[in-house]
Each structure stands twice: as structure tokens, then as C-alpha cells.
């Protein structure tokens, strides 16, 4: 999950990243629901119920007959036990992310395109000396495509809002976080973003590499990247 920079409505966007949509019933009978990238990558807390228990069949062979509240076919119009009865509800509180939770309709304030495009173009400019010309041009082409689609109203609000967050992370040099947002957009909104997002992805990588070179020039020694732990042990 992304951190929420203050004052950009990040909290709503973060919530909106945890959603479940129904599956494609037209193409696949009983297609399961679709979970957003945010939900799928949650490591999540301990499971509330682990559904793996079984009941042994009785040895004498007769089927169990659990007591049932309603005997015989229930009369139509017979209501369920109401909440006002002393019986407590069987489950605890509803979880924060339930099935059918849609993105909450947030303030429909339009996201200014320049907030996203300017920093990206600036980042590209910063890479000019470092990146191969062809790659540079290719990224530039894709940013132009992003601009065209944005201006043409082809991008949805969630995509725009998440791009704002991505740019924030990029400006703060949080490469992994920016990368994660790009991934979440590719997973959740591939149809909208696939043509240009790979350019943004490459831009993040180039900016990261430019910055680490600049850092190297300042500090002569660098810690080795990979710490391998010999004889890693784990109990069974």
C-alpha cells in the first residue's frame, strides 16, 4: 500500500485501491470476483476463520439430524429473528474491506494535468545526459501519449489520482514506492494505461540510476548491495 502524502486526498485514494469487482459473467460462468492490486498484495493480518475442519461420520451409520428452528417448510412471510432479540449476532464487526465495496465517490475535483505532466517531463530532462537518446525519445513519445489521453478525457479519476501520488513519490526520490504505484496501475487499469505506463516505469528506473550516480560522486565508498547470509537456518 502506498503512503499517503498529506493534503492530496491520499486517504481516499488509498481506500479506493482496496476494492473487489464482480467477475466477467458474460465470458466465464461463475467467474470469481476481481481483487484490486492493493488487496492482493496485502500481507494481511491473521485469518479470522481457518476453514479446514471436518466432522467424522458417526460410527453407527445413522445420519445426524441437527435441531432446526423451523420444522417443515417455512411459511412465506415468516421473518428472521430480529436484532432486537437477545440473541447476539454470530459474527463480529464487519471487516473494513467487504465484498461489493466500491470506490467511494470522492470529491470530483478535477486533477490538473500539469501537476503530473510537468514533473515527469522535468524528470526526463534530468536524465538527458545519462540516458541513451533512443530511450529518451521513446519515453518522451509515451509522455506525449499520456498527455494526449489525459487531455482527451480518456483517463478515469482513479488513474489520474494515482498518477499524482506516483509523481509525488518520484519527486521525493521514493523509487520503490513510485514503482509500486506504477505496478498497481498496470494491474488494476491495464486497458487505460498500458500504452504509456511502460514509459513512466522506465523513467522511474532512469531517474533512480541518475540519482545513485550523483550520490556516488558525493560519497566515494558504497556498501555492497547484496548481503548474503551464509548458512541460513530455519526450523522445520
Amino acid at each position: 500500500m502506498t503512503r499517503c502524502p498529506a493534503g492530496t486526498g491520499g486517504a481516499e485514494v488509498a481506500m479506493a485501491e482496496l476494492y473487489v469487482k464482480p467477475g466477467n459473467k458474460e465470458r466465464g460462468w461463475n467467474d470469481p470476483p476481481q481483487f484490486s492490486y492493493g488487496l492482493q498484495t496485502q500481507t494481511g493480518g491473521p485469518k479470522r476463520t481457518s476453514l479446514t475442519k471436518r466432522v467424522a461420520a458417526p460410527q453407527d451409520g445413522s445420519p445426524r439430524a441437527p435441531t432446526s428452528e423451523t420444522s417443515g417448510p417455512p411459511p412465506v412471510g415468516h421473518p428472521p429473528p430480529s436484532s432486537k432479540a437477545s440473541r447476539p449476532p454470530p459474527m463480529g464487526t464487519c471487516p473494513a474491506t467487504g465484498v461489493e465495496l466500491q470506490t467511494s465517490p470522492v470529491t470530483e475535483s478535477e486533477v490538473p494535468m500539469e501537476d503530473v505532466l510537468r514533473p515527469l517531463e522535468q524528470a526526463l530532462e534530468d536524465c538527458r545526459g545519462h540516458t541513451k537518446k533512443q530511450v529518451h525519445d521513446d519515453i518522451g513519445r509515451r509522455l506525449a501519449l499520456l498527455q494526449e489521453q489525459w487531455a482527451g478525457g480518456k483517463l478515469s479519476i482513479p488513474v489520474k489520482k494515482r498518477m499524482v501520488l506516483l509523481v509525488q513519490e518520484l519527486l521525493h526520490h521514493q523509487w520503490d514506492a513510485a514503482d509500486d504505484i506504477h505496478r498497481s496501475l498496470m494491474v488494476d487499469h491495464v486497458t487505460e494505461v498500458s500504452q504509456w505506463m511502460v514509459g513512466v516505469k522506465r523513467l522511474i528506473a532512469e531517474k533512480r540510476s541518475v540519482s545513485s550516480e550523483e550520490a556516488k560522486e558525493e560519497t566515494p565508498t558504497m556498501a555492497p548491495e547484496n548481503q548474503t547470509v551464509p548458512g541460513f537456518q530455519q526450523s522445520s
Partner: protein
Amino acid sequence: MPQFSTIEYVIQRGARSPLIFLYVVDTCLEEDDLQALKESLQMSLSLLPPDALVGLITFGRMVQVHELSCEGISKSYVFRGTKDLTAKQIQDMLGLTKSAMPMQQARPAQPQEQPFVSSRFLQPVHKIDMNLTDLLGELQRDPWPVTQGKRPLRSTGVALSIAVGLLEGTFPNTGARIMLFTGGPPTQGPGMVVGDELKTPIRSWHDIEKDNARFMKKATKHYEMLANQTAANGHCIDIYACALDQTGLLEMKCCPNLTGGYMVMGDSFNTSLFKQTFQRIFSKDFNGDFRMAFGATLEVKTSRELKIAGAIGPCVSLNVKGPCVSENELGVGGTSQWKICGLDPTSTLGIYFEVVNQHNAPIPQGGRGAIQFVTQYQHSSTQKRIRVTTIARNWADAQSQLRHIEAAFDQEAAAVLMARLGVFRAESEEGPDVLRWLDRQLIRLCQKFGQYNKEDPASFRLSDSFSLYPQFMFHLRRSPFLQVFNNSPDESSYYRHHFARQDLTQSLIMIQPILYSYSFHGPPEPVLLDSSSILADRILLMDTFFQIVIYLGETIAQWRKAGYQDMPEYENFKHLLQAPLDDAQEILQARFPMPRYINTEHGGSQARFLLSKVNPSQTHNNLYAWGQETGAPILTDDVSLQVFMDHLKKLAVSSAS
């Protein structure tokens, strides 16, 4: 180290090769299916590690191997889909045999820098992602026109041959996945499964039984040869088959089964089931590494009283003989070492041992037998690792210490191991023979460990260690793994593929689905997989591994229809409806492959998924015999668990058996 039975070592030295992903893509798809597949592949480029190598082969009537370059012009090599080629011919035609020199890339030296190897056809993601995204985006449907009443000409057999040959010639003996995406059966060339005339349907189990499957033997042989070649090269093959009709999984199943690759079956690439299952292949663990691992070899060593009979799982034999190898083979036998080219944290092998007693010597009291499992593999971080598990158990005499053996019996593991054996045999033996064999094993177990008076079935008792075991066998006999005629050959192959590789908990779910009951009477509770569990005021959640079924009892369904869940004073009913949905969601979020999701109610057409799984203790034949009207009668002539147990007891206590 007495307190650890499993230790993993990380190998520091040696070259570390990048992971390799070779996409083999069928272009004979419908427009929106192809578009959805293209988007999934483009998305996957964002999920792959930057230094992974990626390649693309597309096929339809012809097979095209795409040369990936950073220049503007894209080239490809085109092969006829009708002619099979040897690996050497493929490597020659792709120009691999002359210039296979690794390209060194000069970079500021770092202590663990490795020479960077790539090829024109397999390039690192960080270099090629933009061009490959465009290349994928521009893929068109196979241009050869398909006339009315015909199937598209699909050269899957040659496409796979070329993929295997390409990897063999460029990166043998390093972790690589060949990922085949197909939307229909192979219809031309070696490995074809059906002709291109739509009026000739693809083979069913009945056709196979009557020896009426024209292409089956030859096609199976073609894919078996490819699978063995791939396993020898240390690579694995995945099959992602999405179509409404069969795609030839029966003939191609050895490709994932022998190499440890995945088999995914869906209705269309434009479904959540495919898209999310595919995404989950790239899921990461706590360290940010992929869960997949490659190129494993497993060696088993035993103390002298034990011999290895064989293994059943996604592996091939390495043919390593030795004193601990038994002559009696169970599964893949005749060896103490196997190769598993693709694996993940749930991959599980069933390994079978034999106790040998030299010269009828008594087993020493308090003596221990020991087994050691040594697995070498390539971790997804590209490190080589070795994992060693050592276990020891006390010996017990079967005559005098039967109760000790009984107390140590793991009925769940035993059920899965027997089931794997049964399903393994079912691949080559007649169905009824396998069932008879399973029954005989169960009867012998009951004779040995049951407490009873001879000829007195009513006296028969099994201890708690066996409380679930006969039930497991009952459900196994009715399962789609052994009862094939309700499914297509492709579906059976799909179910069996997953059964042969999953861990204990998931395998048990497949044998005997889990059933939980939700009601106002308390928290959700497990209930018997029995028709008596289907009640009007309960909601049931059934997990068969391949399907999650939520079933509303008749009264619940009526209340929902009346809208009580929307009224504030019936908020507890709203919670009741939501509870199984939340639990289902937890399962759906984690499982690979993603299951189908069925939300149905009493009288619904899809209630059949529940009704066909439960033990039919009440059928139209015996409803009145039990004298109660609880539960839903099942319209079937299947034997019920009660009848099964009665017969079992009779046979166990009989002197004649």
C-alpha cells in the same frame, strides 16, 4: 543440531543466471480474447524483475520467433506449422549454433558482478520492455482466414518444439519457464489433437474407451518427448488454456506434469479467473522474492532397513540406482533422485518407502530408522540453495506394538498418499480395477487395525486415529479424480494435475470438500458433507478447491428475497448473509489457481454443484426409511456412506476375505 530438522544452505560461489520467461502465444483467438491476453502479457512485464530475460513466440498456422531488439525494426523467423524439427535444426535455423558467445557488458565493477548473457531472442526486461510492450500491442489475430464449419489451423506442437529447442540452444540448465497461452486445440502438424472440421468433435472419454481417438496416441507421444527433453534441460512448461471447448490438455498434460509447470484452465482470457491466476504467478514473499523456484533435484537417503519405492508428483526420474532403491516400484521408481524443474512453496511430492527386514531379523527394540531429503535448487533471487531435512522414527514391531503404530498414524497424510497412488494407477489402468484395488487396501487396513468379533459386523470399531480415513476413501472413490465420465478428458487432466502437486491441506480439500454451516445459532461450524446438512435456515459454504460454493437454504433465500437485510431491525440477518461472503473472499484472495465462484440457493440450477458432492444419505430411494424429513433428498442411485460403511464392516469381519 537436535532442535532443527530442516536446514537450508545458501551457495555463495558460482555464476548466477537470470530467470527466463519465454511466452508462446496463440493468435487464433477471438478479438477481445486476444486483446485481454495482450494486456495481461504487457502487465506481466511490470511484474517481472528487471534483469529477467523475456522472449516471444507467436503461432497460428505458422510459427513466428520474434527477434527482440531496441532498434525500431522488428524481425522474426517464420516456421511452417506442419513440419517438426529437431532441436539442432531449430538452433541452426535461428543462427544460434555459430554465434552463441556471451556478451559482456562493461559497468563500474562491483564485487558480485556477473557477465551478462543474453541472446537476440531473449532479452532483459529493463532493456526491452518498451519495445516488447509495443510489439505485444501490435499483435494481430492469425491472418489465415477460417472458413465456415472449420477450426483455425493451430500449430501448437511445432510452436512448443521451437520454444524448447530455442531455450536448449541458448540457456540450458538454468531456471526458465516456457509459458504457452492457447485458446483452442492443436489442429495441424505434429501434436495435433483434432482435425479442422468442426463437425468432428474433439475426443471424449467414451471415444477413448472405444479406442476412437484418432490422434491421441501420436499427439501424446509428441508432447511426452518434448516434456522429457525440457526436463532434461532443466526448464519447465506452463499451459494457460482458455476456451469454451477442450484444448488438448489430455495430450499436453505431461508438459506441466513432468516439468513442474502450471496448468491453468479457463473459459476465456477475458475473465477474472485467468487474469488474477496469471498475476498470482508473480506474487512475492516477505523478502520481495518470487515464490517460484527452479531446477530442483531431490535426493533421498535412508538407513538400511528402509528402501525407496518411488515418488509421485511433478518430477522426472534421474535414474540413480543404489542400495536404498527398492525393486518394487510405486510411482516414479527405480531411483533415489528426481528432478523438479519448476516448484513453489506448495509443491509436494509423495514418496513411498518399503520396510525391508534382512533375513527376518527382529527390529532392535528402541532402534530408529532415518530418512534424509536433500533438495538443491535455484531460488528466485537466482541464488543456488540446498535444503536438507532429516527425520528419524522409532521402529515398532507389527505384532506386539500395534497400538503404538496406531497412535502414530497420520490418517490425513495416509489418505492423500493412497489417493495419489490410486490416481497414478488410474492413468494407465481401468477405472473399476483401481476402485477394487483401493477397496482391498481399505479392507485390509480395517482387518488389521479394527476391533471386532469375527463374523459380527455390528461389533466393528475403529480407533480415533482412523476416524476420518474410511470417509476419505469413500469421497475419493466418488471424486472427479477417479470418476471421469462426468467430465471431459481435459477437465480430468486438469483436476489430476493439481491433485498430484498440492500440499496436504489442499489435497484433502480436493478429496473431501470442506463444508461449513452459518446460522443464527452460533459461529460458523464444520458439518458433515452430507445431504442432512442442507437445511432451510442455514447458509452453507463449500470449498472443493476448484470451486467455492455459497448455498442459501430455502428460508434464508426467502428472507433475502423479501429484503430483510435492508431493514435496520434485522441487521443481524445482514451480518449472517455477509459472513460466508467474507470467508469465501479470504480463500479467493489467496488460492492458486483461482477457483470458480458459485453463489446459489435452494432450487437454483447451480445448486447441483453442492448436491453432487454431498453424501446422499437421503435419496429418493431411502427417504422414508430414515423416518425424518430433515435435509434435502438427493436424486441419485449412488451408494451412500452408510451403505459403504456397512459393506466395509461386513467384509472386514468376514473370515472369507
